[in-house]
């Protein structure tokens, strides 16, 4: 199988700071690729590059058969790439359903159909009870799930999840695992950033480790767990499995 999404030789500088330094990643169709790394490693910046929110200083991004470097995010979304935001961005003055409908309108112009699809997605995420709540009233875990629901409602082939489990209690994050598995089983390829180690170890087919903007390691969860360089990078900051 070939790569659904690939970033090749990506470099991104902010003034003097090189946030991403010559990183190459590939996500295979149907896989879950995990991205881990200490705070400030450049994970979110990599997502921003892949999803079109910032332009790479160097390097290219390909989505399936398209070269998409520099395309605006909404164009990328139309090509099947959806993302969530680590710092959640709910449409605060709209209801939960309306939030998700903004996503599902991607698939149908018809309001009734869009609402129908939005309800299905909300059900998948176990958010039926929240349907008519104003989004601003959600708790943080609720907002994280809303991020996923909205992105999923656009009917993506590829989903980029930026720390959708951090800030959740262990019970809540455990409840998230089967949801993500179900999303993958429905045929969506996933690229996820996560600090919650047990989750990323359990879900990922492969893992990429970023450190100071560079790729430190890549491999299966077992390989990564056994990699001394990774352990050191983490021990230098925060312990594994926090």
């Amino acid at each position, binding site marked *: 199988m070939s790569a659904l999404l690939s970033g090749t030789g990506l470099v991104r500088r902010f003034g003097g700071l090189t946030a991403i330094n010559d990183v190459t990643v590939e996500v295979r169709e149907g896989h879950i690729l995990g991205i881990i790394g200490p705070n400030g490693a450049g994970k979110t910046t990599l997502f921003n590059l892949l999803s079109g929110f910032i332009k790479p200083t160097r390097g290219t991004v390909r989505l399936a058969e398209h070269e998409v470097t520099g395309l605006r*995010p909404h164009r990328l979304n139309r090509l099947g790439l959806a993302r969530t935001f680590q710092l959640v961005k709910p449409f605060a003055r709209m209801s939960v359903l309306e939030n998700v409908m903004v996503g599902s309108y991607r698939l149908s112009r018809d309001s009734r159909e869009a609402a129908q699809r939005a309800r299905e997605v909300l059900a998948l995420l176990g958010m039926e009870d929240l349907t008519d709540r104003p989004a601003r009233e959600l708790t943080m875990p609720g907002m994280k799930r809303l991020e996923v629901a909205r992105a999923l409602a656009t009917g993506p082939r590829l989903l980029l999840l930026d720390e959708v489990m951090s800030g959740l209690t262990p019970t809540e994050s455990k409840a998230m695992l089967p949801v993500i598995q179900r999303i993958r089983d429905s045929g969506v390829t996933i690229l996820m950033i996560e600090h919650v180690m047990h989750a990323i170890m359990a879900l990922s087919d492969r893992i990429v480790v970023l450190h100071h903007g560079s790729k430190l390691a890549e491999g299966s969860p077992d390989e990564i767990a056994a990699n001394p360089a990774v352990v050191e990078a983490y021990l230098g900051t925060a312990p594994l499995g926090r």
Partner: protein
Amino acid sequence: MTVLAEGQPAATGRRLISIGLPIVLFAVAAAVPSFVNPYVLEIGILLLMYAYLGSSWDILGGWAGQVSFGHAAFFGIGAYVSALLWINMGLSPWFGMIVGALIASAFGTLVAFATFRARLRGHYFALAMFAVAQMLMALFVNLKEVGGVTIGGSEGLQLPYMGTDPANMVFDGRVPFYYILLAMLAVVVGTIKLISVSRFGAYLQAICNDEDAAEALGVNVFGCKVAAMAISAFFTGAIGAVYGQIYLYIEPGIVFSSVYSIQGLLCAVVGGSGTVWGPVIGALILTPLAEISKTFFRDLSGVDLMIFGAVLVIFVRFIPQGLMGLVLGYAGLRRKAPA
């Protein structure tokens, strides 16, 4: 968005209200001229004009969340285009109104391209619009004539009057204008209603809430903002043309003045921006308020605008969601979970 209501049993009653109430409202408004004296009719005309301006403004300012301080630019363009076409080419203002609206819309699109491409947001966009309107005013003040066509400079343009002439939108009394404005208001409110239940409306609201999130969900943020500007400018331009026909006189100091920019903004903010009826409700409150204050302080010019300023401050400070928002907010409050 009212999509929420669809498919729920309780929605039937609400739908009846949402269709019936406007019909009743417009029927009552249509009956008004038969009962009132010319003075009240004049207020009615102002009210309709402000409700219309507020609704037009709100498509961009409330729905798309791009607050503009310069919609007088479109008002003035509509007024001048229609008047110049009529005076110089004999084109009936009925068509001139459409042409004026289209040109205002084209101009709005141009401005939107420039400002939104430059990523102007929030107060920068508002100020840029303010500058655009003021610049047009300064420009027209200085334009006496262009290529043999009299523009009139600061003195403005007198529109020809040769008795009642319905084909050219000239009437002796004010009653016909009342109905013209009422019909136009119905068109704008109807358009907003359609927008509110459409994908476009949802996209505009999303943009108003968070542009990045909207963009990530596949919303062409730039395109939607430009479209909102084009529609908003179109409607604003159309009423500029009608203004010229009502008073048969236009001058840059009036048609491009910030009064027409702020009037629409005020009605929307007071009534509740980003709602279908908010701007109309705002006009229903503000117009009588202005009239009352004018009669009360007969010899003081500016009192009405002074009160408007105070109203704007008070509303933004204490009821930023406006009256409609307050009402809709209470509905939401009932669903609020115990904290």
